[in-house]
């Protein structure tokens, strides 16, 4: 993050502010983030109104008179850079950058106005803070499991689940589910679904608003891969087998090595390729919603290793126990809707990624090979690309590489 725009103020001049309290919302490249005050005091003056242009990190946003320091001690509040390592995650698609308190931009004297050191400040992502408030969890009592001990959404939700039922917050059960027992976890499936829906809505709406998609489709002869897979699985114990999605993941990762322009992010007005290939794999959740966590370094892993990793991701995704890095690291997304007979999927890119690859169902169809009509297993592969970053020609090269790779599954 290098710049941001004030979306709204949650406090008015003259209002009292506690340290750590969220006072404004800022729109960044990745998401809206909460701005926390790093001092207690009174909001004296708002310097930047909502809707003004994007301002560089470090711009003072407001003046706060610090507690016990008199009128003279006024601390500016400013947005700070967010490093990749400081990101936390929402339970769904959108990576949610955490807002760090900036190095003190020289407030006007008064020790009380100085921002506390890293050891004093509560390290917690905005989404986790909000959730803690909703669930009535005292975030200060938690040990963070995120980078640098940051408290994550999962930490908060785990803490809420671990509490005795009697201490559960008054989270209203949805009207449609009056039978929820009193001892049910505070974070009900319905609440999680609702949050996930919001995150998907936000991410997908942003994608369609900001990313000029182009779409390409190719029909790939999947017969060789299909036959190779059947042979591979024959005679293997059930724990050692592969599913065809793993071949697709590996082939996509290898094709991205050949067309790296599709692998990475659109940040600050330009495409940034990623040296690593972390394929986000779309996993649908029971009851609705989906997540697309990363299978890290998919291009470098053996198929059996990818299979174990994929199984583990699916299991944990459905148990709501993904790691934050898995949610923020994907450099591309792969989605397959083939399980339910869909022939093609033209997906929406997950911002700020540059591309999404979709697969339909492998189907047996008449196909012409060497001038003869023969029955072959065909697979529709599609690419949704960000036209700001690449053109259709690059996308075509990618699909062509994918086709070629899938003709030689033994080399994947």
């Amino acid at each position, binding site marked *: 993050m290098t710049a941001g725009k004030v979306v709204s103020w949650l406090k008015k001049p003259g209002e009292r502010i506690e340290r750590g309290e969220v006072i404004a919302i800022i729109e960044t490249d990745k998401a809206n983030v909460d701005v926390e005050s790093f001092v207690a005091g009174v909001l004296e003056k708002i310097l930047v109104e909502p809707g003004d242009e994007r301002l560089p990190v470090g711009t003072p946003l407001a003046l706060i008179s610090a507690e016990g320091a008199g009128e003279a001690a006024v601390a500016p509040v400013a947005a700070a850079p967010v490093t990749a390592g400081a990101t936390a995650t929402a339970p769904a698609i959108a990576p949610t950058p955490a807002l760090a308190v900036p190095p003190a931009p020289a407030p006007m004297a008064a020790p009380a106005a100085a921002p506390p050191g890293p050891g004093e400040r509560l390290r917690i992502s905005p989404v986790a803070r909000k959730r803690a408030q909703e669930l009535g969890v005292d975030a200060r009592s938690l040990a963070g499991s995120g980078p640098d001990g940051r408290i994550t959404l999962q930490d908060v939700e785990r803490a809420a689940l671990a509490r005795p039922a009697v201490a559960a917050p008054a989270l209203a059960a949805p009207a449609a589910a009056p039978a929820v027992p009193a001892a049910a976890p505070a974070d009900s499936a319905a609440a999680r679904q609702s949050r996930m829906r919001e995150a998907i809505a936000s991410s997908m709406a942003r994608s369609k608003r900001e990313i000029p998609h182009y779409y390409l489709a190719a029909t790939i002869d999947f017969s060789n891969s299909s036959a190779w897979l*059947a042979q591979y*699985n*024959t*005679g*293997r*114990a*059930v*724990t050692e*087998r592969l*599913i*065809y*999605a793993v071949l697709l993941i590996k082939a996509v990762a290898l094709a991205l090595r050949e067309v790296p322009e599709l692998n990475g992010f659109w940040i600050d007005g330009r495409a940034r390729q990623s040296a690593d290939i972390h394929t986000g794999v779309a996993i*649908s959740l*029971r*009851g609705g919603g989906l997540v697309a966590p990363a299978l890290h370094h998919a291009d470098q892993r053996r198929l059996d290793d990818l299979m174990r990793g*994929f*199984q583990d991701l*699916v*299991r944990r995704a459905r148990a709501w126990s993904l790691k934050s890095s898995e949610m923020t690291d994907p450099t591309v997304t792969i989605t397959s809707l083939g*399980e339910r007979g869909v022939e093609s999927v033209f997906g929406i890119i997950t911002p700020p990624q540059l591309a999404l690859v979709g697969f339909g169902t492998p189907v047996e169809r008449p196909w012409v090979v060497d001038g003869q009509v023969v029955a072959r297993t065909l697979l529709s592969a599609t690419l949704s690309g960000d036209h700001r970053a690449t053109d259709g020609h690059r996308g075509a090269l990618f699909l062509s590489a994918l086709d070629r790779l899938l003709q030689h599954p033994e080399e994947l």
Partner: protein
Amino acid sequence: MNQEEIRTRVVKTLSGIVPELEPGSLKPGQSLRDQLDIDSMDFLNFLIALHQEFGVDVPESDAGKLGSIDACVEYLAQALRQRAQA
């Protein structure tokens, strides 16, 4: 192990894969994929769980024979009989 015992354990195993499963609403002759919205990963995990529960490793070529609860019970009963006779 009689068929009813096998059936009970199959349903229990399945509910490990599909937590929201309501055993009472399962149609024993109908396709599990269609009834329960399970995908190939779920199905493979189901086969792995059956292997753990019954000690029967279903070969890839037989996987299609376990499409419904009835079919699972029949297949496992036969596999267990064969194992007992061996």
